[in-house]
């Protein structure tokens, strides 16, 4: 959160943007993400807010195949009653709107969206 | 809901079996909502079975929870040769058998607790007496070996046929009859001692 004015991590900004898209129920990572967060929680010996860590690990930002590009992967659970592909297209647009502010002068990021569930 | 929980193999309503088979196929393909329906549908009967087998509600809940989780993991290989309810009965029975075997042996007949004195003196004597007998029965069950207890409970409290018990426990019908006989023998012995 931005309450203390600190710059927010890119993945967190993307997660917030995605969560705001109509039709998105919540962000959900694959199993790897869940394991990572539970291992991290055990390693640091403190309780991690499960919702927060789940949302963050549902967004992965890496290097794209072309130099200087970003590859962004987002995993989401959608609400029934919304056409899935319409929501994923909205998510992509929301991600693109978020990224330029953080990564100016770069070619457009590759954005991969995976629907991991419907509720 | 149709189908008596006591007899999964005999009395399960045809419609419910069809529905269970469909839900199990869905759950095997990762439909956790289908699995939740199965858990809701069969949880009460399985919890009753486990409570009878273990004589302890908390342990029974753990056993049934473990059984369902293990069923979720095994469902992709579940081919529906038997009804889902029979399959679950088998998993719960095996889990409870392991729990019973892991308990420290309570040893011989002279360890049978005396029947508790009727606590409700105000209630009619016959009711109190009947209640005391039931209490005494559950205490007496503690002396049964895990194998005897499982066969006896499935046969007497759940009303399964010897054939069904044999199928569930994975031993011959004659072996089931032998275990039920020995269980009855010990329980009648205990009851004579209460007189």
């Amino acid at each position, binding site marked *: 959160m931005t309450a203390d004015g600190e710059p927010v991590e890119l993945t967190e900004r993307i997660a917030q943007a995605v969560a705001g898209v109509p039709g998105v129920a919540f962000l959900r990572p694959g199993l790897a993400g869940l394991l990572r967060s539970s291992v991290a929680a055990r390693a640091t010996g403190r309780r991690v807010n499960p919702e927060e860590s789940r949302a963050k690990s549902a967004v992965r930002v890496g290097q794209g195949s072309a130099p200087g590009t970003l590859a962004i992967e987002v995993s989401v659970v959608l609400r029934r009653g919304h056409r899935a*592909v319409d929501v994923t*297209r909205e998510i992509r647009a929301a991600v693109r709107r978020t990224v330029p502010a953080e990564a100016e002068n770069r070619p457009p990021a590759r954005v991969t969206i995976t629907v991991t569930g419907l509720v | 809901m149709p189908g008596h929980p006591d007899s999964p193999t005999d009395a399960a309503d045809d419609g419910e079996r069809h529905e269970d088979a469909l839900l199990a196929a869905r759950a095997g393909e990762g439909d956790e909502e289908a699995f*939740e329906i199965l858990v809701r549908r069969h949880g009460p009967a399985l919890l009753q079975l486990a409570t009878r087998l273990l004589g302890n509600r908390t342990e029974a809940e753990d056993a049934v929870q473990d059984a369902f989780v293990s069923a979720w993991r095994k469902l992709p290989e579940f081919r529906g040769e038997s009804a889902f309810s029979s399959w679950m009965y088998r998993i719960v029975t095996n889990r409870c058998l392991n729990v019973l075997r892991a308990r420290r042996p309570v040893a011989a007949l002279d360890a049978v607790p005396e029947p508790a004195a009727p606590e409700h003196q105000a209630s009619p004597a016959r009711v109190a007496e009947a209640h005391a007998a039931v209490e005494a029965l559950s205490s007496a069950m503690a002396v049964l070996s895990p194998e005897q207890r499982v066969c006896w409970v499935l046969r007497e409290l759940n009303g399964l046929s010897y054939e069904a018990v044999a199928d569930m426990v994975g031993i011959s019908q004659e072996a089931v009859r032998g275990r039920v006989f020995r269980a009855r023998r010990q329980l009648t012995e205990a009851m004579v001692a209460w007189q």
Partner: protein
Amino acid sequence: MAMNADPNSGSTDATDSADVPGEELLPCGRKLGDVWRQWEDGLADPHTRTCPHCSAALHDLDRLQDVVRRARAEEPPQEDTGALVDRVMDVVRLELRPGRTLPLGASAEDDWIVEAAAAKVFRAAADSLPGVRTGSCRIAPAGSGAAAPARRARGPVAVRVEIVVAATVNLQRIAEQVREEVFAAADGLLGMEVGSVDVTVTDVVPEDDLAEGGPR
């Protein structure tokens, strides 16, 4: 061996081979196990009806069975299983099986959906037809054939649905109707390109055996 066989012999029931039931002899020479078994199997026997030893043995068993009946009647029902369901499902949701990752949208896009989620939509679509209940629904990426599918292949998917139908359903038409429902759901609810829908009727059952509306 007399009436009091070693009372502990029964509790050392570790192996089946040690399990020789009913060897215990009553004073009249009958085996206790045989007497009880006859009673259980409902077989009449003139001897046991008149023999005091057999009668006594049967009386003991009768008393036990009477207490057993009362125990069954007294037992409280185990209906409050809500907490158990929640605990089970909490674990299950940490061990979901999403299946394959399948393409969503047009070929050039980079949107995907897991098989388990798409299958739920297709099953519900088929279930909406009266007299149809859906079991298995598998979805394969385009051109995957028998070989292991390439990870994340684009292109229209192949759907295989298994249904149970009510006897009242027109078997000639039902497969086509299911196909139409699945195509419509793929386009209207998901935005997924479906190349083929194979429908297998696995069972025909009395109409009453199909739950109204199904689980979802």
